[in-house]
């Protein structure tokens, strides 16, 4: 990309990217920790994860302040404007993802004393794995301005939805089997719901990346099965 005539403008845009990368890294770590604390029944790790959400919130505020200042000072247009708007929106999505992750960590505290049936946690573990991979890919797509990759993330979210649906049924069955499981299962169910929502925000990030690169929203309907192809991308 050609550099700005005004070097400080360029630096301000780079600053935004660095902040997003930092925020994205912290969010990924928080989500990982939240699940680990649940899986290992580790209240200390859960507490640390909960505290670390604060830095994600602070970063979001920093990105917002910086973006507003840039809009006021530079009157950005075209790709610069899309860049700043994308950073603002992605920061918002990451903040939400941080909150959902924190919520999972809180549930780890609540059920620390209970015994965990392995298969149920394995189901949740697979969801976390996929959610983390999706988040990482979405953030990479932003960093690389890779709309193709963003589209892959966007399409893949249905897998997470499917996992959520099957876990939902599984937990329900488990609760019906033995009412003593209801407490634990409910917490796990909310955890799964949080992961499903995290997937939606990750999808938002993918959409934002597509808009940033092409200047157009993804016009495709979200895939039902794997029928659509990447020919639907419109060059901006």
């Amino acid at each position, binding site marked *: *990309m*050609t*550099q*700005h*005539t*005004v070097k400080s*403008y360029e630096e301000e845009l780079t600053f935004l990217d660095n902040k997003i990368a930092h925020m994205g890294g912290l969010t990924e770590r928080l989500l990982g920790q939240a699940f680990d604390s649940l899986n290992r029944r580790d209240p200390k790790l859960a507490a640390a994860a909960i505290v670390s959400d604060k830095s994600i919130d602070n970063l979001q505020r920093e990105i917002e302040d910086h973006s507003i200042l840039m809009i006021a000072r530079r*009157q*950005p*247009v*075209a*790709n*610069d*404007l*899309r860049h700043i708007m994308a950073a603002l929106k992605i920061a918002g999505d990451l903040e939400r993802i941080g909150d959902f992750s924190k919520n999972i960590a809180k549930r780890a505290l609540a059920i620390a004393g209970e015994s965990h049936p392995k298969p149920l946690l394995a189901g949740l573990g697979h969801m976390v794995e996929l959610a983390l991979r999706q988040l990482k890919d979405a953030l990479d797509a932003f960093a690389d301005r890779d709309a193709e990759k963003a589209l892959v993330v966007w399409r893949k979210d249905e897998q997470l939805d499917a996992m959520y649906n099957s876990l939902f049924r599984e937990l329900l069955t488990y609760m019906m089997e033995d009412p003593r499981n209801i407490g634990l299962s409910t917490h796990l169910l909310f955890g799964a719901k949080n992961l499903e929502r995290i997937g939606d925000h990750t999808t938002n990030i993918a959409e934002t990346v597509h808009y940033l690169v*092409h*200047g*157009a929203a993804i016009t495709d309907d979200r895939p039902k099965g794997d029928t659509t192809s990447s020919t639907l991308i419109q060059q*901006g």
Partner: protein
Amino acid sequence: MDTAAATVPSNRRPASNSAKVIARKVNVHYGDKQAIKNVSVDIPDRGVMAFIGPSGCGKSTFLRCINRMNDTIASARVTGRIEIDGQDIYDPELDVVQLRARVGMVFQKPNPFPKSIYENVAYGPRIHGLSGSKAELDRIVMDSLSKAGLLNEVNDRLNDTATGLSGGQQQRLCIARAIAVSPDVILMDEPCSALDPIATARIEELIDELRSNFCIIIVTHSFAQAARVSQRTAFFHLGELVEEGPTPQIFSTPRDKRTQDYITGRFG
């Protein structure tokens, strides 16, 4: 010009869906140097089109083709075709004086005549014979000043010299002078570059009001201004028309990399 046009325009023409000004393969040479390369563009009626581009890109040269101002430059040679309402304006039979009555122009620096405020506006209608009586001329002058948003400020001193007005007032007087002859097209060559932000805002407001009656073409160095006042934007570079489209699209998602590099301040 028909008698209906003797009054200051107000919905005098039916809005046409087709372009007001059509340029096809326009080339301009100054001696050996080519200033405009093969420019084709349709400029709609009742709206504002902004020409943007770096200095020397040809936007002003092209603007001046539309009322044949380049005729006054001995070395300038214009080829191609420019039509206004389907009429070839480079037709040798065409009366250039009449053309310039139809295509008004406002310049970068306000250039009122060293006459009274009234005379500045009355001058055009008078030489073009647009008014039959003093009363009618008065009406055209008042109407034009009112449309230019200046009447309230000068109503009690119409016979004062125009050069005593502020820069912004002088520019609005020049706009009143341009619309007094009931033009179809108004060309503006950086009309706000000599004005402060408040005077600029008033001119922009005025442009926004005038666009419901005129085809306005504005050359501006301020992207922000182009984004604010125009409905369509054309980007010129090195004599070429690089990209033309709806203003919101040009400023959010330009198609051509040169446009993007220019409007984001990445040029050269």
